[in-house]
């Protein structure tokens, strides 16, 4: 299944790429991540907890980064499995400089989800994952703004506070209500995109941790 999406970061490309290499920022954008380690160059293992509606449990997986062209693009392949099911995906991410000094992040890929995640979590995963990606991007937007502000003032302290689990949960709940009005097609997009984005985020986090 082909998927694609974009997000505009309000800052220059180099700053965005660097931010993606700050593990503290990225970990805060991704709830549930438990453990990450590099097993080889550009090859990582991770453990995370997944909770999607009635489906929850530990998830472990592997990820490979390929075609890394800093600060422009990378390809990631990976998958994970655990009690809640399994997930396999491949995604391409591009960061494009734009004239107004913003950065366009484009991602496209293909994902395959199975097990209880797919068969029981289906209805919930749409909303939960959509929320995760939206909140994740919001967090990154704020983090970027804080980093840029710090750079401007020359301050070493970045005034950024990651959202708490409770805030995350609140956002998820809000989105669940909104989802009711969406068509099945819209839901499908939200279902796949976030999962890829989560992989992307994880991969970058892992890379930075490994480094």
């Amino acid at each position, binding site marked *: 299944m082909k998927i694609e999406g974009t997000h505009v970061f309000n800052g220059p490309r180099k700053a965005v790429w660097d931010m993606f290499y700050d593990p503290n920022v990225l970990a805060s954008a991704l709830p549930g991540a438990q453990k990450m380690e590099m097993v080889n160059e550009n090859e990582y293992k991770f453990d995370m907890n997944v909770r999607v509606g009635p489906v929850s449990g530990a998830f472990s997986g592997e990820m490979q980064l390929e075609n890394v062209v800093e600060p422009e693009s990378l390809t990631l392949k990976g998958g994970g499995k655990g*009690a809640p099911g399994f997930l396999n995906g491949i995604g391409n991410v591009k960061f494009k400089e734009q004239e107004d000094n913003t950065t366009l992040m484009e991602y496209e890929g293909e994902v395959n989800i*199975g097990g209880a995640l*797919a*068969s029981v979590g289906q209805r919930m995963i749409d909303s939960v994952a959509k929320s995760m990606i939206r909140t994740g991007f919001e967090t990154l937007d704020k983090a970027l703004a804080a980093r840029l502000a710090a750079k401007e003032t020359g301050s070493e302290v970045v005034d950024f506070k990651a959202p708490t689990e409770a805030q995350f949960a609140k956002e998820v709940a809000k989105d669940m209500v909104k989802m009711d009005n969406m068509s099945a097609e819209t839901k499908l997009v939200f279902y796949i995109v976030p999962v890829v984005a989560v992989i992307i985020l994880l991969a970058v986090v892992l890379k930075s941790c490994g480094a």
Partner: protein
Amino acid sequence: MAEKQKFVGQSIKRNEDPRLLTGNSTFIDDINLPGMLHIAIKRSDFAHAKINKIDVEKAKALPGVVAVYTADDLGDYWKPGPLQVPPPSVIKGAIFFARPLECIAKNKIRFSGEPVAVVVAESRYIAEDALDLIELDVELLPYVGDLEKTLAPDAPLVHEDLESNLAADVIQEAGSWEKAVAEADVVVKKRLLVNRVAGGALENRGIVVNWDQNLNLLTVWATTQGPIPMRNSIAKYLGLLENQVRLINPAIGGGFGPKIMSSQIDDVVIPWIAMQLKRPLKWVEDRRENFLGTTSERDQLHYAEMALKKDGTILGVKDVFYHNTGAYNPYGMTVPLNTQTHTVSNYRVPNFFTEIKMVFTNQMVVTPVRGAGRPQGVFVMERLIDAAAKELGMDPAELRRKNLLQPEDFPLRTGIIGQDFVEGILDSGNYPYALEKTLEGIEYEKFKQEIQPKARAEGKYKGIGITMFTEGTAVGPYEGCKVMVGVTGKVSVITAYSNQGQAHYTTFAQVAADQLGVKVTDVDVVTGDSGQWSWGVGAFASRGITLVGTAVHNASLKVREKALNLASKLLETPVDELELEDGVVRVADMPEKFITLGELAMRSNPTRGTVEPGMEPGLEAASYYGPPHGATGFGSLAMIVDVDPETGMIKIERLVITDDCGQPVNPMVVDGQIHGGLQMGIGEAFYENLVYDDYGQLVTASFMDYLFPQASDMPDKFEIYHSHTKSPLNPLGIKGVGEAGAIAPPACMMQAFEDAMGLDDMFITESSINPSKLYNYIQKAKGA
């Protein structure tokens, strides 16, 4: 010497209801044995994969886990099961590649949900926890699920030893389609899709097994619809005699088809484990497992054509269809053959060509679900008529009226071989009556001329649908029973037929009570216990009341004769001067001279002295009944629907059905069957849908996503009319009715939705629709 019918034909309250309503029935999960262990089944998350390794060591190490088995642990015991239904070799030119079910995946996984390991533990909790510790190392293979693409030359193969995913190809032709086309003024063509639905019984499947090695007796309680075939399958697998396996149906909370299956993991592997461990075992499916691990049905793609004269006379029908059998085809061709026999069965169609292309996919195995191929055939034919009506500018009711089979056409040889492997013969019927009664009941003309125009003027979208259906029922081979008068004067009816809620405890009792002069409440019916009655086939094809009912009738006549003969001797009165009533045999004109049935039963088993040669003790007789071919019920269904222009939701304002199942044994029970069937059919058309994603994951494996229609989704009233065209095939004139209601709703509702929108170019090609799609049509209708 048959007694006239006092109870057959009466709406008598059900014998079984007091115990059901007071919670005093024993269902499978109510059975608990000392020392019993619990089973959980590890099912594959993958739809298509090669198994490299299944690591169960961590699961085995979990405290409380007694054993874990994979296919390798079964050794030589592992083998693909027998086909439950034989191949259609009786049909000339039929191609069939038998790939029976594998009870547990050995080298390859062919659908998501396929069993890969079995955990036995001290409790169900522990067993389920252990499932999470089993690691499955697989090599993923490409998934195939599309009915047409599965036959593409480069499609991945579900069974590598076959050249393609073609599971069967069966062509049947009555008359000549070519001739019909040559003579036709119009040929309409449609590509029609029928969706996939679950049986969705309230109670899931389950099995409890107890092996007593001292008695050499394996007792199995199972929710099967076919106790005797399952008993025989278990005996054969384990090398036991039939009587060393006692198969008992506890109370069963619904079947609807899928529980007919045997030679699956439950009845192949679990009894074997029970003998290995020498401990009683229990396995009860949970709901998600039911969606993933229990068979389901429909899913056909039809390329259908109809040739007509300008005046609306149908000359012929051609239907080439793909039928999804899933990963295996253990149930043979039953479902698609039913489709072939139910396509043109209401109408005079001189030329009929029908071809089944049955295909393997990486999906759950397809076996009958209430309707079992019939709704597909009816959907195709009724949709073709609707398309033709539009093409010819005729009223849908008029086009149907013009082409209906007439009462004098019966019995009618159809030239099409059915699921029972004999040529279909429509035994009897009065189709025009059903159509006219339904049209009159729903006030068809009034709706078209007054109600609908008025609704349109008010911005409302109301439409009417009128459809016909037949229901092939009561096919062979046979069923049987034993009827006995006991020493208390009460009567026992014992059959190995299976009961899932069909009211057999009452209807069989009514048949027996009529011949034996007792109250219906004084007849005790036992179903599905191979320890009490050893022969039978199973609950499918709406055949229980006709086959077992007739056997009960015939056995009761024999017992009646025995009772009268014995009474004749004891009362020293000729038989023709005796009457059997109110539990006694008495001399007709001397009511004070009588003997009770209980006394006769006692005397029928002499304990001293000698007997005459050929004497058979007991007021007991057995009987078997097998019809030469099925009895065909029929009817007509009409609905008025109101589509909400703001939401696309629907209200069924009126529903009128005329049904004919020959002689109803209990009209209340017949109506109940029709209610349930209608609700299932409405669910199929608007609510229920089994959906696989592009990777073979079933994404509707819970009641959150698989929507059952609620009582509040039903019309306020099912308006039911009956006609009684008795079947000439059996003495009581009975036909089945178990699937009647479920057959026509999709065809009827799609016609009604089109009528509601009033769009010239609108034609619904799928048997299922949802509010979102209807809403799109409404937007078009608003613009029109």
